[in-house]
């Protein structure tokens, strides 16, 4: 499990310097415009846009590939059967295996959209420090409760993951999982084993719950939730001024919005 979200968030590139609010709005609109594409002829265009943005971000290609690998396999699992089952135009046949044209085209469309959206989402999240992203979403109307929950969850995710792996190691050292799997009935989980794993998850919840009580006291002592001081862990960032709109950041936003609109118009026409 790799949790470092901010690995490449501090590089210097036009995308890193882009004002976070403009970047969030611009790239999200672009992502939805990519999802709008149904015409196969537009797939190379959206892939080219995503590739250009990624090269502008100066993040290494290995980062993109490592992030695409797992969801890529999952996606293939969902759509791999399409070329064999869907459509009427047979283009290749060998015994019971039949490749159909419509299925292949549908698969290319889904894979193209997926690559373009995933790459752009990675640029959006990878070029902004996570705290800045949450502050930006907060200033764009995300409820404070969800923003606070996001940051607290993020903060303790690492702790709890470490906690679980320590407990799992302790279970293994005491002999859990050493029984011979081959002697057991296939497709039947062992009830005793299930009970032990439920206790493992339960212990994780109890520990987290008790820790949260201590955290809440510490937060209160620092003034969290106080009406007088209005202390909140997540402040909404200041709204963009009209001067921001005349800078490169503003130009970037206008450009992405134009590209997104042209994609949607091209799709409709």
């Amino acid at each position, binding site marked *: 499990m790799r949790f470092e*979200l901010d690995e490449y968030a501090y590089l210097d590139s036009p995308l890193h310097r882009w004002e976070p609010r403009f970047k969030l709005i611009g790239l999200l609109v672009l992502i939805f415009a990519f999802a709008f594409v149904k015409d196969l002829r537009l797939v190379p265009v959206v892939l080219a846009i995503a590739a250009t943005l990624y090269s502008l971000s100066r993040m290494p290609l290995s980062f993109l590939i490592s992030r695409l690998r797992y969801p890529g396999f999952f996606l293939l699992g969902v759509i791999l059967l399409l070329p064999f089952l869907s459509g009427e135009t047979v283009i290749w046949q060998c015994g019971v295996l039949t490749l159909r044209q419509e299925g292949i085209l549908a698969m290319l469309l889904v894979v193209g959209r997926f690559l373009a959206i995933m790459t752009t989402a990675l640029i959006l999240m990878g070029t902004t420090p996570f705290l800045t992203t949450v502050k930006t979403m907060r200033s764009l109307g995300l409820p404070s409760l*969800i923003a606070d*929950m996001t940051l607290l969850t993020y903060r303790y*995710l690492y702790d709890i993951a470490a906690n679980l792996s320590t407990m799992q190691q302790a279970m293994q050292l005491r002999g859990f999982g050493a029984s011979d799997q081959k002697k*057991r009935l296939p497709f039947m989980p062992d009830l005793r084993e299930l009970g032990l794993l*439920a206790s493992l*998850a339960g212990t994780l919840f109890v520990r987290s719950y008790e820790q949260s009580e201590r955290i*809440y006291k510490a937060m209160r002592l620092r003034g969290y939730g106080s009406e007088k001081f209005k202390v909140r862990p997540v402040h909404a960032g200041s709204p963009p001024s009209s001067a921001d709109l005349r800078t490169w950041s503003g130009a970037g936003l206008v450009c992405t919005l134009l590209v997104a609109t042209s994609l949607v118009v091209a799709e409709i026409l």
Partner: protein
Amino acid sequence: MHIPDGILPASVCIAGYAIAAPFAWYSLRQINRLKDPTEELPKASLLTAAFFIASSINIPVPPSSVHLVLNGLLGSVLGYFAFPAILVGLFFQAIMFGHGGLTTLGVDAVMMGVPALVAHHIFRVRHAFRQKLGEKLATNIFAFLAGALGLGLSAVIFFFLVITNIPSGFDAQTEQAAVYGLTLAHLPLMLIEGTFTLLLVAFLQRVKPELIERRG
């Protein structure tokens, strides 16, 4: 069980957000009615993180192993906090592992969150059967149902969305049969998820009863 980016057309993604919004709004309204919502916030956040991590536990089912979804359990323990918790959890899964996606966040939140809220209400029904069945049996039965139906409902929504939206060219009858078939194939997983929820709730009731009595 998440729908990745790219599969669903933009209209379905936007509809997902539009359906998720009122559920999020209603959940936040119920939370704000609590005596002190800020006190509950760290508890809900750390439990969200713990659920997120616990769903990575491998359950050995020879010859392979399965992961649990735990949305039924999440609803039972967190109550109305379950919907924002699922939004936050899905957001992290999307940006950390690319599991799910930003365009499908709304759809995925409906798919996981609405069954979690249903599970919350199923789990509450146990209070009505306390006298008749006894405290322990009633809790066990409704914990099992909450866990199993939480996953089952999510599976139905997942297969319905994927099969009706993949540009497959199948006719309506084949699609319907596929949805039924794939959901039936999930019955054993529902049994495992329900049993796990039952065992976990029984554990919490022995060790830290306030964890399940707070919201449920």
